[in-house]
Protein backbone atom coordinates (compact mmCIF):
# COMPACT_ATOMS: atom_id res chain seq x y z
CA UNK A 1 0.00 0.00 0.00
CA UNK A 2 1.37 3.38 -0.85
CA UNK A 3 1.12 6.47 1.24
CA UNK A 4 -1.71 7.91 -0.78
CA UNK A 5 -4.07 5.01 -0.24
CA UNK A 6 -3.33 4.93 3.47
CA UNK A 7 -4.05 8.62 3.64
CA UNK A 8 -7.28 8.40 1.70
CA UNK A 9 -8.37 5.36 3.66
CA UNK A 10 -7.80 7.12 6.94
CA UNK A 11 -9.63 10.20 5.70
CA UNK A 12 -12.57 8.05 4.73
CA UNK A 13 -12.49 6.31 8.07
CA UNK A 14 -12.41 9.63 9.87
CA UNK A 15 -15.25 10.84 7.68
CA UNK A 16 -17.28 7.78 8.50
CA UNK A 17 -16.64 8.27 12.22
CA UNK A 18 -17.75 11.89 12.06
CA UNK A 19 -20.82 10.93 10.07
CA UNK A 20 -21.77 8.15 12.45
CA UNK A 21 -21.25 10.33 15.48
CA UNK A 22 -23.39 13.15 14.11
CA UNK A 23 -25.97 10.59 13.16
CA UNK A 24 -26.03 8.98 16.59
CA UNK A 25 -25.57 12.19 18.53
CA UNK A 26 -29.10 12.61 19.62
CA UNK A 27 -28.66 14.82 22.61
CA UNK A 28 -30.69 16.14 25.50
CA UNK A 29 -29.41 19.41 26.89
CA UNK A 30 -30.64 19.61 30.46
CA UNK A 31 -30.55 22.80 32.53
CA UNK A 32 -30.96 21.71 36.11
CA UNK A 33 -29.82 21.86 39.75
CA UNK A 34 -26.86 20.03 41.26
CA UNK A 35 -27.84 16.47 42.19
CA UNK A 36 -30.94 16.22 39.98
CA UNK A 37 -29.20 14.24 37.25
CA UNK A 38 -26.76 11.84 38.95
CA UNK A 39 -24.27 10.01 36.75
CA UNK A 40 -25.84 6.62 37.43
CA UNK A 41 -29.24 7.77 36.18
CA UNK A 42 -27.76 9.42 33.09
CA UNK A 43 -25.87 6.26 32.19
CA UNK A 44 -28.94 4.11 32.49
CA UNK A 45 -30.93 6.55 30.36
CA UNK A 46 -28.22 6.56 27.70
CA UNK A 47 -28.17 2.79 27.67
CA UNK A 48 -31.93 2.52 27.27
CA UNK A 49 -32.51 5.23 24.73
CA UNK A 50 -29.12 5.99 23.14
CA UNK A 51 -29.65 9.68 23.88
CA UNK A 52 -26.68 11.56 25.31
CA UNK A 53 -27.50 13.85 28.23
CA UNK A 54 -25.58 17.07 28.63
CA UNK A 55 -26.12 18.60 32.05
CA UNK A 56 -25.69 22.25 32.99
CA UNK A 57 -26.03 22.97 36.70
CA UNK A 58 -27.65 26.22 37.67
CA UNK A 59 -30.15 27.96 39.93
CA UNK A 60 -33.51 29.69 39.42
CA UNK A 61 -32.26 33.14 38.55
CA UNK A 62 -29.49 31.89 36.29
CA UNK A 63 -31.83 29.52 34.47
CA UNK A 64 -34.25 32.32 33.68
CA UNK A 65 -31.46 34.75 32.77
CA UNK A 66 -29.83 32.21 30.46
CA UNK A 67 -33.09 31.45 28.68
CA UNK A 68 -33.94 35.13 28.55
CA UNK A 69 -30.59 35.87 26.89
CA UNK A 70 -31.18 33.31 24.16
CA UNK A 71 -34.96 33.86 23.98
CA UNK A 72 -35.50 30.26 25.01
CA UNK A 73 -32.76 28.49 23.04
CA UNK A 74 -29.72 26.44 24.01
CA UNK A 75 -31.46 23.85 26.18
CA UNK A 76 -34.08 21.14 25.65
CA UNK A 77 -35.36 20.86 29.21
CA UNK A 78 -35.06 23.15 32.25
CA UNK A 79 -36.03 22.89 35.94
CA UNK A 80 -36.99 26.21 37.52
CA UNK A 81 -39.07 26.31 40.69
CA UNK A 82 -42.81 26.32 40.33
CA UNK A 83 -43.28 29.91 41.51
CA UNK A 84 -40.92 31.18 38.79
CA UNK A 85 -42.64 29.61 35.79
CA UNK A 86 -45.73 31.69 35.10
CA UNK A 87 -44.19 35.13 35.66
CA UNK A 88 -41.09 34.36 33.60
CA UNK A 89 -43.33 33.10 30.81
CA UNK A 90 -45.51 36.21 30.92
CA UNK A 91 -42.56 38.58 30.99
CA UNK A 92 -40.05 36.96 28.68
CA UNK A 93 -41.91 34.24 26.73
CA UNK A 94 -39.13 31.69 27.16
CA UNK A 95 -41.07 28.43 27.62
CA UNK A 96 -43.17 26.17 25.45
CA UNK A 97 -46.46 24.63 26.68
CA UNK A 98 -46.22 21.02 27.85
CA UNK A 99 -48.24 18.37 26.07
CA UNK A 100 -49.57 16.44 29.06
CA UNK A 101 -50.66 13.55 26.86
CA UNK A 102 -46.99 12.73 26.32
CA UNK A 103 -46.41 12.40 30.04
CA UNK A 104 -47.23 9.31 32.03
CA UNK A 105 -49.31 10.99 34.71
CA UNK A 106 -49.84 7.73 36.61
CA UNK A 107 -46.22 8.02 37.82
CA UNK A 108 -46.92 11.34 39.57
CA UNK A 109 -48.42 11.99 43.00
CA UNK A 110 -51.65 13.35 41.58
CA UNK A 111 -52.19 16.18 44.08
CA UNK A 112 -48.74 17.60 43.25
CA UNK A 113 -49.26 17.27 39.53
CA UNK A 114 -52.55 19.13 39.82
CA UNK A 115 -51.09 21.86 42.01
CA UNK A 116 -48.19 22.51 39.62
CA UNK A 117 -50.50 22.43 36.64
CA UNK A 118 -52.73 25.03 38.25
CA UNK A 119 -49.87 27.32 39.20
CA UNK A 120 -48.06 27.19 35.90
CA UNK A 121 -51.01 27.83 33.61
CA UNK A 122 -50.71 30.92 31.43
CA UNK A 123 -53.48 31.76 28.93
CA UNK A 124 -54.98 28.32 29.40
CA UNK A 125 -51.76 26.48 28.59
CA UNK A 126 -49.81 24.38 31.07
CA UNK A 127 -46.07 25.03 31.24
CA UNK A 128 -44.72 22.79 34.01
CA UNK A 129 -44.90 19.40 35.69
CA UNK A 130 -43.45 18.80 39.18
CA UNK A 131 -40.20 16.96 39.84
CA UNK A 132 -38.39 17.49 43.16
CA UNK A 133 -39.81 19.23 46.21
CA UNK A 134 -38.32 20.40 49.45
CA UNK A 135 -38.26 23.27 51.89
CA UNK A 136 -36.16 26.01 53.40
CA UNK A 137 -35.98 26.38 57.13
CA UNK A 138 -33.33 26.23 59.80
CA UNK A 139 -30.21 24.11 60.14
CA UNK A 140 -29.29 23.99 63.79
CA UNK A 141 -26.43 22.55 65.79
CA UNK A 142 -28.56 21.16 68.61
CA UNK A 143 -25.69 20.70 71.06
CA UNK A 144 -25.17 24.47 71.19
CA UNK A 145 -28.21 26.24 69.80
CA UNK A 146 -31.14 23.95 70.54
CA UNK A 147 -33.41 26.90 71.31
CA UNK A 148 -33.27 28.27 67.76
CA UNK A 149 -36.81 27.42 66.71
CA UNK A 150 -37.80 30.17 64.31
CA UNK A 151 -36.14 32.42 61.75
CA UNK A 152 -36.07 35.41 64.10
CA UNK A 153 -34.22 33.37 66.74
CA UNK A 154 -31.19 33.72 64.48
CA UNK A 155 -31.04 37.31 65.72
CA UNK A 156 -30.68 36.23 69.37
CA UNK A 157 -27.62 38.02 70.76
CA UNK A 158 -26.56 34.73 72.41
CA UNK A 159 -25.46 33.57 68.99
CA UNK A 160 -23.78 36.78 67.84
CA UNK A 161 -21.31 36.06 65.04
CA UNK A 162 -22.42 32.42 64.94
CA UNK A 163 -25.26 32.42 62.42
CA UNK A 164 -25.45 32.55 58.66
CA UNK A 165 -28.17 33.03 56.06
CA UNK A 166 -28.49 34.16 52.49
CA UNK A 167 -29.32 37.67 51.42
CA UNK A 168 -32.04 36.52 49.05
CA UNK A 169 -35.82 36.46 48.78
CA UNK A 170 -36.45 33.27 50.86
CA UNK A 171 -34.83 35.00 53.84
CA UNK A 172 -37.13 38.01 53.49
CA UNK A 173 -40.16 35.78 53.25
CA UNK A 174 -39.14 33.49 56.12
CA UNK A 175 -38.50 36.45 58.42
CA UNK A 176 -41.81 38.03 57.40
CA UNK A 177 -43.69 34.89 58.48
CA UNK A 178 -41.72 34.71 61.72
CA UNK A 179 -42.65 38.35 62.42
CA UNK A 180 -46.31 37.45 62.14
CA UNK A 181 -46.91 38.78 58.64
CA UNK A 182 -48.27 36.87 55.66
CA UNK A 183 -46.20 37.97 52.66
CA UNK A 184 -47.87 35.48 50.31
CA UNK A 185 -51.28 37.02 51.03
CA UNK A 186 -49.75 40.41 50.14
CA UNK A 187 -48.37 39.21 46.77
CA UNK A 188 -51.30 40.82 45.00
CA UNK A 189 -50.95 44.12 46.86
CA UNK A 190 -47.56 45.70 46.07
CA UNK A 191 -48.04 48.59 48.51
CA UNK A 192 -48.76 46.23 51.40
CA UNK A 193 -45.93 43.93 50.29
CA UNK A 194 -43.50 46.82 50.21
CA UNK A 195 -44.53 47.81 53.72
CA UNK A 196 -43.95 44.26 55.00
CA UNK A 197 -40.60 44.05 53.25
CA UNK A 198 -39.47 47.37 54.71
CA UNK A 199 -40.27 46.08 58.17
CA UNK A 200 -38.32 42.88 57.46
CA UNK A 201 -35.46 44.95 56.03
CA UNK A 202 -35.21 46.85 59.30
CA UNK A 203 -35.15 43.62 61.27
CA UNK A 204 -32.42 42.21 59.04
CA UNK A 205 -30.39 45.41 59.38
CA UNK A 206 -30.56 45.11 63.17
CA UNK A 207 -29.71 41.44 62.89
CA UNK A 208 -26.67 42.05 60.72
CA UNK A 209 -24.24 42.21 63.63
CA UNK A 210 -25.26 38.66 64.52
CA UNK A 211 -24.38 37.25 61.11
CA UNK A 212 -20.96 35.79 60.49
CA UNK A 213 -21.26 35.86 56.71
CA UNK A 214 -24.07 35.82 54.19
CA UNK A 215 -23.64 32.53 52.36
CA UNK A 216 -24.29 32.31 48.65
CA UNK A 217 -23.25 28.84 47.51
CA UNK A 218 -24.59 25.79 49.33
CA UNK A 219 -21.06 24.45 49.88
CA UNK A 220 -20.00 27.61 51.69
CA UNK A 221 -22.92 27.17 54.10
CA UNK A 222 -22.12 23.49 54.63
CA UNK A 223 -18.49 24.21 55.48
CA UNK A 224 -19.47 26.99 57.89
CA UNK A 225 -21.80 24.63 59.74
CA UNK A 226 -19.53 21.61 59.57
CA UNK A 227 -16.50 23.45 60.93
CA UNK A 228 -18.56 24.80 63.82
CA UNK A 229 -17.86 28.39 62.78
CA UNK A 230 -21.63 28.88 62.78
CA UNK A 231 -24.21 27.07 64.91
CA UNK A 232 -27.46 28.00 63.14
CA UNK A 233 -28.35 28.83 59.57
CA UNK A 234 -31.29 29.44 57.34
CA UNK A 235 -30.94 26.95 54.51
CA UNK A 236 -32.45 24.03 52.61
CA UNK A 237 -33.59 20.84 54.30
CA UNK A 238 -31.34 18.63 52.14
CA UNK A 239 -28.26 20.52 53.38
CA UNK A 240 -29.29 19.86 56.96
CA UNK A 241 -29.70 16.13 56.35
CA UNK A 242 -26.37 15.99 54.57
CA UNK A 243 -24.73 17.53 57.65
CA UNK A 244 -26.73 15.20 59.89
CA UNK A 245 -25.14 12.19 58.21
CA UNK A 246 -21.69 13.45 59.31
CA UNK A 247 -22.63 14.93 62.67
CA UNK A 248 -25.84 13.84 64.36
CA UNK A 249 -25.99 17.06 66.44
CA UNK A 250 -26.72 19.08 63.34
CA UNK A 251 -30.01 18.74 61.52
CA UNK A 252 -32.78 20.52 59.70
CA UNK A 253 -35.49 22.01 61.88
CA UNK A 254 -38.86 23.09 60.51
CA UNK A 255 -39.34 26.61 61.93
CA UNK A 256 -42.29 27.38 64.19
CA UNK A 257 -43.76 29.81 61.67
CA UNK A 258 -43.49 27.24 58.92
CA UNK A 259 -40.90 25.90 56.53
CA UNK A 260 -41.04 27.44 53.04
CA UNK A 261 -41.98 24.79 50.49
CA UNK A 262 -40.80 24.78 46.91
CA UNK A 263 -41.31 22.46 43.96
CA UNK A 264 -38.77 22.31 41.18
CA UNK A 265 -40.44 21.53 37.89
CA UNK A 266 -39.79 20.42 34.34
CA UNK A 267 -40.35 23.06 31.66
CA UNK A 268 -39.62 23.07 27.94
CA UNK A 269 -37.56 26.04 26.73
CA UNK A 270 -39.34 27.73 23.82
CA UNK A 271 -36.72 26.78 21.24
CA UNK A 272 -36.04 23.25 22.44
CA UNK A 273 -34.48 21.13 19.72
CA UNK A 274 -35.29 17.72 21.10
CA UNK A 275 -38.73 17.79 22.63
CA UNK A 276 -39.20 14.04 22.23
CA UNK A 277 -36.09 13.32 24.30
CA UNK A 278 -37.28 15.76 26.95
CA UNK A 279 -40.53 13.81 27.38
CA UNK A 280 -38.56 10.56 27.43
CA UNK A 281 -36.34 11.94 30.21
CA UNK A 282 -39.32 13.11 32.27
CA UNK A 283 -41.05 9.74 32.03
CA UNK A 284 -37.77 7.98 32.78
CA UNK A 285 -36.82 9.90 35.93
CA UNK A 286 -40.34 9.69 37.35
CA UNK A 287 -40.14 5.89 37.55
CA UNK A 288 -40.20 5.16 41.30
CA UNK A 289 -36.83 3.38 41.43
CA UNK A 290 -35.09 6.07 39.37
CA UNK A 291 -36.73 8.84 41.38
CA UNK A 292 -35.38 7.20 44.54
CA UNK A 293 -31.84 7.47 43.14
CA UNK A 294 -32.40 11.16 42.53
CA UNK A 295 -33.67 11.54 46.09
CA UNK A 296 -30.46 9.91 47.24
CA UNK A 297 -28.22 12.29 45.32
CA UNK A 298 -30.22 15.53 45.66
CA UNK A 299 -31.35 14.87 49.22
CA UNK A 300 -34.95 15.83 48.49
CA UNK A 301 -38.05 13.82 47.74
CA UNK A 302 -39.70 13.75 44.34
CA UNK A 303 -43.25 13.90 43.02
CA UNK A 304 -42.93 10.31 41.85
CA UNK A 305 -45.66 8.06 43.22
CA UNK A 306 -44.32 5.18 45.31
CA UNK A 307 -40.66 6.16 45.18
CA UNK A 308 -40.31 6.41 48.98
CA UNK A 309 -40.42 2.61 49.08
CA UNK A 310 -37.03 2.62 47.37
CA UNK A 311 -35.49 5.38 49.48
CA UNK A 312 -33.24 4.12 52.27
CA UNK A 313 -34.45 4.09 55.85
CA UNK A 314 -31.92 6.60 57.15
CA UNK A 315 -33.15 9.27 54.77
CA UNK A 316 -36.73 8.68 55.89
CA UNK A 317 -35.74 8.79 59.56
CA UNK A 318 -34.00 12.15 59.04
CA UNK A 319 -37.07 13.47 57.29
CA UNK A 320 -39.40 12.32 60.05
CA UNK A 321 -37.18 13.80 62.72
CA UNK A 322 -37.34 17.21 61.04
CA UNK A 323 -41.02 17.20 60.14
CA UNK A 324 -43.83 16.20 62.46
CA UNK A 325 -47.25 15.81 60.89
CA UNK A 326 -48.18 19.32 61.99
CA UNK A 327 -44.93 20.73 60.57
CA UNK A 328 -45.90 19.32 57.21
CA UNK A 329 -49.32 20.94 57.38
CA UNK A 330 -47.59 24.17 58.33
CA UNK A 331 -45.33 24.29 55.24
CA UNK A 332 -45.87 27.55 53.37
CA UNK A 333 -45.83 26.71 49.68
CA UNK A 334 -44.56 29.46 47.40
CA UNK A 335 -47.33 30.81 45.19
CA UNK A 336 -46.31 32.14 41.75
CA UNK A 337 -44.38 35.39 42.07
CA UNK A 338 -46.16 38.30 40.39
CA UNK A 339 -43.93 40.58 38.36
CA UNK A 340 -42.45 43.64 40.01
CA UNK A 341 -42.02 42.14 43.48
CA UNK A 342 -38.40 41.28 42.79
CA UNK A 343 -37.62 44.97 42.35
CA UNK A 344 -39.08 45.78 45.77
CA UNK A 345 -37.15 42.92 47.37
CA UNK A 346 -33.97 43.89 45.53
CA UNK A 347 -33.94 47.41 46.94
CA UNK A 348 -34.48 46.10 50.47
CA UNK A 349 -31.72 43.50 50.13
CA UNK A 350 -29.34 46.15 48.76
CA UNK A 351 -30.06 48.41 51.72
CA UNK A 352 -29.49 45.62 54.22
CA UNK A 353 -26.17 44.82 52.60
CA UNK A 354 -25.14 48.47 52.53
CA UNK A 355 -26.20 49.28 56.09
Amino acid sequence: MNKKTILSASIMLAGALVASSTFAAEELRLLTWGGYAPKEVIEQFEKETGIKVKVTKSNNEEMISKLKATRGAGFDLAQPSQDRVASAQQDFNIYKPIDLSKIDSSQFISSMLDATRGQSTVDGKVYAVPHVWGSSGLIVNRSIAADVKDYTDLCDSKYAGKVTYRLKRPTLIGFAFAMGEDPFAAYSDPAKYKQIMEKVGMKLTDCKANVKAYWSGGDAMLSLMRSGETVAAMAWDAGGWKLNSDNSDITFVAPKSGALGWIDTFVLPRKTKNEAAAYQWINFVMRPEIAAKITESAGNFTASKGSDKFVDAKKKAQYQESFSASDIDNIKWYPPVPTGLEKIEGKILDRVKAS
Partner: protein
Amino acid sequence: MSAVTVAKKIRLGLWLLLAPLFLWLVLLIILPHFELLAFSLIDPEDQGFTFEFYLEFFQEPLYWRTFLRTAVMSILATILTLVIAFPVAFYIAKMLRGRSKGIVFAMCLIPFWVSELVRTFGWMILLRESGVISNFLQWSGLASGPVELLYTDATIMLGLVYTSMLFMVVPLVSTLDSLDDSYIEAGYDLGGSNWDVMREIIIPHAVPGIVSGCIIVFMLSLGNYLTPVLLGGKDSLWFTEQIYTQFITRFNWEQGSAFGLLLLLLSSLIVWAGLKATGQSFTKTMG
Protein backbone atom coordinates in the same frame (compact mmCIF):
# COMPACT_ATOMS: atom_id res chain seq x y z
CA MET B 1 6.30 41.88 -11.09
CA SER B 2 5.86 45.60 -11.09
CA ALA B 3 6.16 47.72 -8.00
CA VAL B 4 2.43 48.50 -8.09
CA THR B 5 1.33 44.85 -7.86
CA VAL B 6 3.82 44.21 -5.04
CA ALA B 7 2.39 47.14 -3.13
CA LYS B 8 -1.12 45.82 -3.79
CA LYS B 9 -0.15 42.38 -2.54
CA ILE B 10 1.35 43.86 0.60
CA ARG B 11 -1.80 45.84 1.22
CA LEU B 12 -3.96 42.77 0.76
CA GLY B 13 -1.71 40.82 3.12
CA LEU B 14 -1.97 43.58 5.69
CA TRP B 15 -5.75 43.49 5.52
CA LEU B 16 -5.76 39.72 5.86
CA LEU B 17 -3.49 39.95 8.87
CA LEU B 18 -5.66 42.63 10.42
CA ALA B 19 -8.90 40.79 9.72
CA PRO B 20 -8.93 38.59 12.86
CA LEU B 21 -8.17 41.56 15.10
CA PHE B 22 -10.76 43.65 13.32
CA LEU B 23 -13.43 40.95 13.56
CA TRP B 24 -12.63 40.37 17.20
CA LEU B 25 -12.91 44.06 18.00
CA VAL B 26 -16.14 44.61 16.11
CA LEU B 27 -17.98 41.40 16.94
CA LEU B 28 -16.91 40.86 20.52
CA ILE B 29 -16.17 44.34 21.85
CA ILE B 30 -17.87 47.09 19.87
CA LEU B 31 -21.17 45.47 18.92
CA PRO B 32 -21.98 44.21 22.44
CA HIS B 33 -21.27 47.66 23.81
CA PHE B 34 -23.68 49.18 21.36
CA GLU B 35 -26.27 46.67 22.46
CA LEU B 36 -25.62 47.59 26.09
CA LEU B 37 -26.02 51.23 25.17
CA ALA B 38 -29.33 50.50 23.48
CA PHE B 39 -30.53 48.48 26.48
CA SER B 40 -29.61 51.20 28.92
CA LEU B 41 -31.39 53.98 27.03
CA ILE B 42 -34.64 52.32 26.04
CA ASP B 43 -37.55 51.97 28.40
CA PRO B 44 -38.66 48.31 28.23
CA GLU B 45 -42.30 49.23 28.80
CA ASP B 46 -43.01 51.77 26.06
CA GLN B 47 -39.81 51.38 23.98
CA GLY B 48 -39.20 55.12 24.34
CA PHE B 49 -35.94 56.89 25.04
CA THR B 50 -35.09 57.26 28.72
CA PHE B 51 -32.29 58.38 31.01
CA GLU B 52 -33.99 56.85 34.03
CA PHE B 53 -31.43 54.06 34.50
CA TYR B 54 -28.52 56.48 34.56
CA LEU B 55 -30.36 58.83 36.90
CA GLU B 56 -31.02 55.89 39.22
CA PHE B 57 -27.26 55.55 39.71
CA PHE B 58 -26.93 59.13 40.92
CA GLN B 59 -30.18 59.29 42.86
CA GLU B 60 -29.81 56.09 44.88
CA PRO B 61 -26.95 56.70 47.32
CA LEU B 62 -26.26 52.98 47.59
CA TYR B 63 -25.17 52.72 43.95
CA TRP B 64 -22.80 55.64 43.70
CA ARG B 65 -21.42 54.91 47.15
CA THR B 66 -20.70 51.37 46.06
CA PHE B 67 -18.92 52.70 43.03
CA LEU B 68 -16.96 55.19 45.10
CA ARG B 69 -15.95 52.48 47.56
CA THR B 70 -14.88 50.21 44.71
CA ALA B 71 -12.85 52.98 43.09
CA VAL B 72 -11.14 54.05 46.33
CA MET B 73 -10.26 50.48 47.27
CA SER B 74 -8.96 49.82 43.76
CA ILE B 75 -6.75 52.90 43.90
CA LEU B 76 -5.47 51.81 47.30
CA ALA B 77 -4.82 48.32 45.97
CA THR B 78 -2.92 49.83 43.02
CA ILE B 79 -0.71 51.93 45.29
CA LEU B 80 -0.02 48.99 47.61
CA THR B 81 0.80 46.76 44.66
CA LEU B 82 3.21 49.37 43.32
CA VAL B 83 4.93 49.78 46.68
CA ILE B 84 5.39 46.04 47.06
CA ALA B 85 6.19 45.27 43.43
CA PHE B 86 8.76 48.00 42.87
CA PRO B 87 11.52 46.56 45.10
CA VAL B 88 10.78 43.09 43.74
CA ALA B 89 11.06 44.32 40.15
CA PHE B 90 14.20 46.30 40.94
CA TYR B 91 15.78 43.25 42.53
CA ILE B 92 14.93 41.08 39.53
CA ALA B 93 16.04 43.62 36.93
CA LYS B 94 19.15 45.06 38.53
CA MET B 95 20.52 42.83 41.28
CA LEU B 96 20.13 39.38 39.73
CA ARG B 97 21.99 38.05 36.74
CA GLY B 98 21.57 35.07 34.45
CA ARG B 99 19.88 31.99 35.74
CA SER B 100 18.80 33.20 39.15
CA LYS B 101 17.05 36.09 37.43
CA GLY B 102 15.00 33.65 35.37
CA ILE B 103 14.20 31.55 38.42
CA VAL B 104 12.98 34.45 40.56
CA PHE B 105 10.95 35.80 37.66
CA ALA B 106 9.39 32.36 37.16
CA MET B 107 8.58 32.23 40.87
CA CYS B 108 6.52 35.39 40.43
CA LEU B 109 4.75 33.76 37.51
CA ILE B 110 3.99 30.31 38.90
CA PRO B 111 1.03 31.26 41.12
CA PHE B 112 -0.70 32.51 37.98
CA TRP B 113 -0.68 29.10 36.40
CA VAL B 114 -3.64 28.10 38.55
CA SER B 115 -6.97 29.81 38.15
CA GLU B 116 -7.99 32.80 40.19
CA LEU B 117 -10.77 30.80 41.81
CA VAL B 118 -8.36 28.19 43.13
CA ARG B 119 -6.00 30.86 44.46
CA THR B 120 -8.87 32.58 46.21
CA PHE B 121 -10.02 29.33 47.81
CA GLY B 122 -6.41 28.82 48.93
CA TRP B 123 -6.58 32.12 50.79
CA MET B 124 -9.90 31.11 52.33
CA ILE B 125 -8.39 27.89 53.68
CA LEU B 126 -5.52 29.84 55.20
CA LEU B 127 -7.53 32.67 56.70
CA ARG B 128 -10.78 31.18 57.94
CA GLU B 129 -11.59 30.79 61.63
CA SER B 130 -10.91 27.06 61.53
CA GLY B 131 -8.09 27.59 59.05
CA VAL B 132 -4.34 27.14 58.97
CA ILE B 133 -3.22 30.52 60.33
CA SER B 134 -5.83 30.57 63.08
CA ASN B 135 -4.78 27.09 64.20
CA PHE B 136 -1.12 28.01 64.11
CA LEU B 137 -1.70 31.08 66.26
CA GLN B 138 -3.59 29.01 68.82
CA TRP B 139 -0.99 26.26 68.78
CA SER B 140 1.85 28.71 69.32
CA GLY B 141 -0.03 30.42 72.15
CA LEU B 142 -0.25 33.79 70.38
CA ALA B 143 -4.03 33.63 70.43
CA SER B 144 -6.27 32.15 73.05
CA GLY B 145 -9.24 31.39 70.81
CA PRO B 146 -10.02 30.99 67.12
CA VAL B 147 -9.12 34.06 65.07
CA GLU B 148 -11.27 35.09 62.13
CA LEU B 149 -9.18 36.73 59.43
CA LEU B 150 -11.64 36.33 56.61
CA TYR B 151 -14.57 38.53 55.60
CA THR B 152 -13.02 41.95 56.11
CA ASP B 153 -11.95 44.76 53.79
CA ALA B 154 -8.33 44.01 54.63
CA THR B 155 -8.80 40.49 53.29
CA ILE B 156 -10.20 41.88 50.05
CA MET B 157 -7.18 44.16 49.79
CA LEU B 158 -4.83 41.23 50.36
CA GLY B 159 -6.58 39.23 47.66
CA LEU B 160 -6.53 42.10 45.19
CA VAL B 161 -2.86 42.89 45.71
CA TYR B 162 -1.96 39.23 45.41
CA THR B 163 -3.98 38.76 42.22
CA SER B 164 -2.55 41.79 40.47
CA MET B 165 1.08 41.60 41.59
CA LEU B 166 2.30 40.00 38.39
CA PHE B 167 0.76 42.67 36.22
CA MET B 168 2.80 45.30 38.04
CA VAL B 169 6.05 43.34 38.19
CA VAL B 170 6.27 42.53 34.48
CA PRO B 171 6.10 46.09 33.05
CA LEU B 172 8.39 47.35 35.83
CA VAL B 173 11.03 44.70 35.14
CA SER B 174 11.03 45.45 31.45
CA THR B 175 11.45 49.21 31.90
CA LEU B 176 14.07 48.81 34.62
CA ASP B 177 15.94 46.34 32.43
CA SER B 178 16.34 49.01 29.80
CA LEU B 179 18.01 51.40 32.24
CA ASP B 180 21.76 51.38 31.65
CA ASP B 181 23.65 50.60 34.87
CA SER B 182 26.19 53.26 34.02
CA TYR B 183 23.60 55.98 34.71
CA ILE B 184 23.18 54.67 38.22
CA GLU B 185 26.96 54.49 38.71
CA ALA B 186 27.31 58.04 37.36
CA GLY B 187 24.72 59.17 39.87
CA TYR B 188 26.76 57.75 42.75
CA ASP B 189 30.04 59.11 41.25
CA LEU B 190 28.53 62.57 41.27
CA GLY B 191 27.92 62.24 44.99
CA GLY B 192 24.25 61.27 45.02
CA SER B 193 22.82 59.34 47.96
CA ASN B 194 20.66 56.23 47.50
CA TRP B 195 17.57 58.37 47.77
CA ASP B 196 18.90 60.90 45.18
CA VAL B 197 19.69 58.14 42.70
CA MET B 198 16.30 56.60 43.18
CA ARG B 199 14.46 59.89 42.83
CA GLU B 200 16.50 61.50 40.05
CA ILE B 201 17.45 58.53 37.89
CA ILE B 202 15.57 55.29 38.52
CA ILE B 203 12.03 56.50 39.07
CA PRO B 204 12.01 58.99 36.17
CA HIS B 205 13.22 56.21 33.91
CA ALA B 206 10.66 53.73 35.23
CA VAL B 207 7.68 56.07 34.91
CA PRO B 208 6.24 54.50 31.74
CA GLY B 209 6.39 51.08 33.43
CA ILE B 210 4.86 52.42 36.63
CA VAL B 211 2.01 54.10 34.76
CA SER B 212 1.16 51.16 32.55
CA GLY B 213 1.39 48.78 35.52
CA CYS B 214 -0.88 51.03 37.56
CA ILE B 215 -3.46 51.27 34.78
CA ILE B 216 -3.60 47.50 34.38
CA VAL B 217 -3.79 46.82 38.11
CA PHE B 218 -6.42 49.50 38.68
CA MET B 219 -8.61 48.17 35.88
CA LEU B 220 -8.19 44.56 37.03
CA SER B 221 -9.12 45.44 40.62
CA LEU B 222 -12.09 47.54 39.59
CA GLY B 223 -13.39 44.80 37.33
CA ASN B 224 -12.64 41.96 39.75
CA TYR B 225 -15.66 39.94 40.83
CA LEU B 226 -14.42 36.77 42.51
CA THR B 227 -12.04 38.16 45.09
CA PRO B 228 -14.38 40.70 46.73
CA VAL B 229 -17.32 38.30 46.66
CA LEU B 230 -15.47 35.34 48.18
CA LEU B 231 -13.10 37.07 50.58
CA GLY B 232 -15.26 40.04 51.50
CA GLY B 233 -17.57 40.03 54.47
CA LYS B 234 -21.17 40.97 54.90
CA ASP B 235 -20.37 44.64 54.27
CA SER B 236 -18.31 44.08 51.18
CA LEU B 237 -19.93 45.88 48.29
CA TRP B 238 -18.26 45.77 44.92
CA PHE B 239 -19.62 47.44 41.83
CA THR B 240 -19.24 44.42 39.56
CA GLU B 241 -21.29 42.42 42.05
CA GLN B 242 -24.02 45.02 41.70
CA ILE B 243 -23.92 44.62 37.90
CA TYR B 244 -24.14 40.84 38.23
CA THR B 245 -27.10 41.16 40.60
CA GLN B 246 -28.95 43.48 38.25
CA PHE B 247 -28.45 41.18 35.29
CA ILE B 248 -28.90 37.78 36.89
CA THR B 249 -31.00 37.98 40.05
CA ARG B 250 -33.15 41.00 39.23
CA PHE B 251 -33.55 40.33 35.48
CA ASN B 252 -33.03 44.06 35.16
CA TRP B 253 -30.81 44.16 32.09
CA GLU B 254 -31.51 47.82 31.49
CA GLN B 255 -30.13 48.83 34.87
CA GLY B 256 -27.23 46.39 34.54
CA SER B 257 -26.29 47.80 31.14
CA ALA B 258 -26.37 51.33 32.48
CA PHE B 259 -24.12 50.31 35.37
CA GLY B 260 -21.74 48.51 33.01
CA LEU B 261 -21.35 51.55 30.80
CA LEU B 262 -21.01 53.85 33.80
CA LEU B 263 -18.24 51.60 35.11
CA LEU B 264 -16.47 51.88 31.76
CA LEU B 265 -16.88 55.65 31.59
CA LEU B 266 -16.02 56.45 35.19
CA SER B 267 -12.99 54.17 35.28
CA SER B 268 -11.69 55.70 32.03
CA LEU B 269 -12.21 59.09 33.62
CA ILE B 270 -10.21 58.07 36.69
CA VAL B 271 -7.36 56.74 34.53
CA TRP B 272 -7.40 59.93 32.48
CA ALA B 273 -7.33 62.06 35.63
CA GLY B 274 -4.46 59.96 36.97
CA LEU B 275 -2.47 60.47 33.77
CA LYS B 276 -3.13 64.21 33.82
CA ALA B 277 -2.21 64.52 37.49
CA THR B 278 1.14 62.80 36.96
CA GLY B 279 1.80 64.67 33.72
CA GLN B 280 1.83 61.55 31.58
CA SER B 281 0.14 60.86 28.29
CA PHE B 282 -1.36 57.59 27.23
CA THR B 283 0.63 57.34 23.98
CA LYS B 284 3.91 58.03 25.75
CA THR B 285 3.23 55.27 28.26
CA MET B 286 2.21 52.67 25.77
CA GLY B 287 4.80 53.61 23.12
